[in-house]
């Protein structure tokens, strides 16, 4: 290991610019992914908040008969995703409104008639709160003639999902593009290092060093370049986050495990790039 490490470090000193550019390209690739990580993580937080409620509210027509309502309740209780269906009468709704909106209790109290409709509050099972499930349940309820309107807070959720998929696509394209460039540059760096060490490599093969031993310094060089790139990306992402979160809007920082995962991804990218270059340029007997 000491030999490989020394040789890998020598390679950095021999071509510091190339090593720097390699690391920067990996950093750029992962920085894009890091920014997306922040967006995705925050969107996920919002969605989790909405999902935690996991609730669909069906406002009933005043004309709906108790038998209609009972039939609907019965139907919904039979749906697999539904945990609980609660009937909220018009009186109860008014009562809740008076309690929750005490400032307006005077207004409500002075009304001759109750303006609020009766409703069914449908709670979903904990593992059935995904957007697709919520939407399909809501559509099913909405199709019932006794129901006037369905609310499930998804009007804007759809927009959030759209935003996320657009961001994911852009990130995928940009991140992959930079990753390919990074692989090519690391390949060039490794090729240069192989060329600079061709005499040593020939002697190593002559005296019986294993292929693994001969390749190790180059893989190590790739690993270190990649880890360096990963750390630069984490730093750049964090700086962008710090600037954005106070000036524009409040977002949460991604979990530490994502940061570590990103840095390790950089290392893996570097190793893969060197491996490809070593396979191509290091002729073994």
């Amino acid at each position, binding site marked *: 290991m000491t*030999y490989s490490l020394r040789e890998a470090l020598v390679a950095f000193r021999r071509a510091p610019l190339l090593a720097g550019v390699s690391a920067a390209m990996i950093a750029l690739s992962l920085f894009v992914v890091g920014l997306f990580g922040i967006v995705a993580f925050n969107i996920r937080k919002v969605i989790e908040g909405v999902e935690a409620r996991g609730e669909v509210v069906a406002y009933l027509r005043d004309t709906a008969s108790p038998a209609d309502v009972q039939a609907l309740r019965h139907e919904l209780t039979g749906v697999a995703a539904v945990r609980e269906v609660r009937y909220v009468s018009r009186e109860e709704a008014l009562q809740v409104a008076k309690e929750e909106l005490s400032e307006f209790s005077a207004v409500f109290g002075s009304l001759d008639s109750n303006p609020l409709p009766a409703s069914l509050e449908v709670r979903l099972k904990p593992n059935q709160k995904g957007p697709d499930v919520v939407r399909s349940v809501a559509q099913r309820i909405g199709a019932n003639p006794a129901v006037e309107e369905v609310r499930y807070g998804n009007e804007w959720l759809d927009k959030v999902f759209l935003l996320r998929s657009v961001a994911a696509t852009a990130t995928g394209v940009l991140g992959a593009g930079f990753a390919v460039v990074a692989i090519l540059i690391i390949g060039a760096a490794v090729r240069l290092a192989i060329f600079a060490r061709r*005499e*040593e490599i*020939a*002697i*190593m*093969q*002559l*005296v*019986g*060093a*294993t*292929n693994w*031993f*001969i390749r190790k310094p180059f893989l190590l060089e790739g690993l270190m370049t990649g880890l360096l790139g990963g750390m630069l990306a984490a730093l750049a992402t964090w700086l962008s986050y710090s600037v954005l979160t106070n000036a524009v809007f409040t977002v949460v920082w991604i979990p530490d495990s994502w940061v570590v995962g990103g840095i390790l991804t950089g290392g893996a990218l570097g190793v893969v790039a060197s491996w490809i270059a070593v396979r191509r340029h290091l002729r*073994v*007997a």
Partner: protein
Amino acid sequence: MISLLHVTKTYPRTGDAVADVSLTLNKGEFCFLTGHSGAGKSTIMRLIHMAERPTSGEVRVSGYSSTTIRPREIALLRRKIGYCFQDFRLLQDRTAAENVAFALEVTGAKPQVIRTKVPRLLAQVGLASKAEALPSQLSGGEQQRVAMARALVHEPLVVLADEPTGNLDERATRGIFDLLQHINQSGTAVLLATHNLELVRANPDVRVIELDHGRLVYDSAAEEVRS
């Protein structure tokens, strides 16, 4: 220990470098490999070193066969084969001692083993006092001695010496030849490729194999001489 069985090596452009050669080198044997330039001497050595695979036929070395040997086994086999060249192939930016140590280092020897072995090997080839010299500060004969010390780091079964005296004057040639004989006396087989016929004639007791255009045309150890 080393056998070539009907070995042919064909290169795409130049044709047969070695054509249907069969020979055996026993443990501890000393043997000249002669022939004109381009006769196939170096190719035979590369075949024994498994740096080339025969186009047809089989090379067997120390229990390994060219038909089945795996890359990792090639590396291990090479530790049992010392190799010297006409042009020495030393690393120019390393001292004599470092060149010898390098062969140990890259095959996983421990530092304390390297520390004790390197001075011993340099002493064995008569270069104890030149350990810290760079190749550029050494004569041709001295550089070849460093290369031989490097070839001996793993107590090889055989030393393949490919025209080791080709670049050396008469005195240095004598010295290298004596050293090879000395190495041979301690049980290591030596295959010495040379077109120095004087050297061959001066040592009539030594086995001689002669190649001509890739064919084995004479083997002093064999009863019959092929045409």
